């Protein structure tokens, strides 16, 4: 893999207060790396959506925050992991307005639009891992 990582942070996600803590820590990293205000806001908003999904649908989990370097320059990679029920149909879950809960159904698809790279691996009965990367604009 061409990306190297550093400055790891890991935040447990079990409540809505953990969601706040995670997005504040993501903001701190984005500010420290010199992301523009709009880029910070997009990344932190994506982090908030995905962290809430981990708590509400994944039964809790963690997010790892890493600073990465690669062909895209420098960036932040967030990895959300849960051992929840998994997502049976990922394509459907990514579709706007689709929800199995009480949300708006904008979280997953919306988060994908706010970052540069978005990967999702999910196995029913095992859990879900979502990895997103936002590169800092030169």
């Amino acid at each position: 893999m061409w990306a190297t990582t550093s400055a790891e942070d890991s935040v447990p996600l079990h409540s809505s207060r953990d969601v706040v803590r995670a997005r504040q820590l993501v903001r701190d990293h984005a500010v420290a790396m010199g992301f523009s205000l709009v880029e910070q806001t997009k990344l932190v908003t994506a982090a908030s959506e995905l962290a809430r999904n981990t708590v509400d649908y994944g039964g809790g989990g963690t997010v790892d925050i890493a600073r990465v370097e690669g062909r895209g320059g420098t960036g932040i990679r967030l990895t959300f992991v849960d051992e929840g029920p998994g997502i049976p149909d990922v394509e459907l879950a990514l579709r706007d307005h689709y929800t199995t809960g009480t949300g708006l159904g904008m979280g997953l698809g919306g988060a994908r639009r706010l970052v540069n790279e978005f990967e999702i691996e999910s196995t029913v009965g095992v859990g879900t891992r979502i990895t997103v990367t936002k590169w800092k604009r030169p």
Partner: protein
Amino acid sequence: MDRIPILKLGDLLLVTIQVDMHDQLALALEDDLGQRIVETGAHGVLIDISSVELVDSFIGRMLGNIAAMARVLDAITVVVGMRPAVAITLVDLGLSLPQIRTALDVDAGVALLNGLLVAQTDGR
């Protein structure tokens, strides 16, 4: 549990959100505002989000719910002070909040509300 304060200003209720709200706090604000609209008979609700650095789908939904609930309780909601970075992000997220009236700042929001309330009274 902590709460977002709701101030009464004449016929209006003013809410200034100055903290990074967790989800329970947002839900409590919805409940409290419904209660206060009924108690005070306010016809306008002004929500100042100029200190808010993030509006995700949950907070967006809260704003929409408040506007819809207030409407049913005979009150008009105006959201003021949205930061440009927040607005850009909301549109990318897929939320354009069509049901919410907005103004750039509190002064413009009060003027908009007063105008709407006068127009509504004249129409009755």
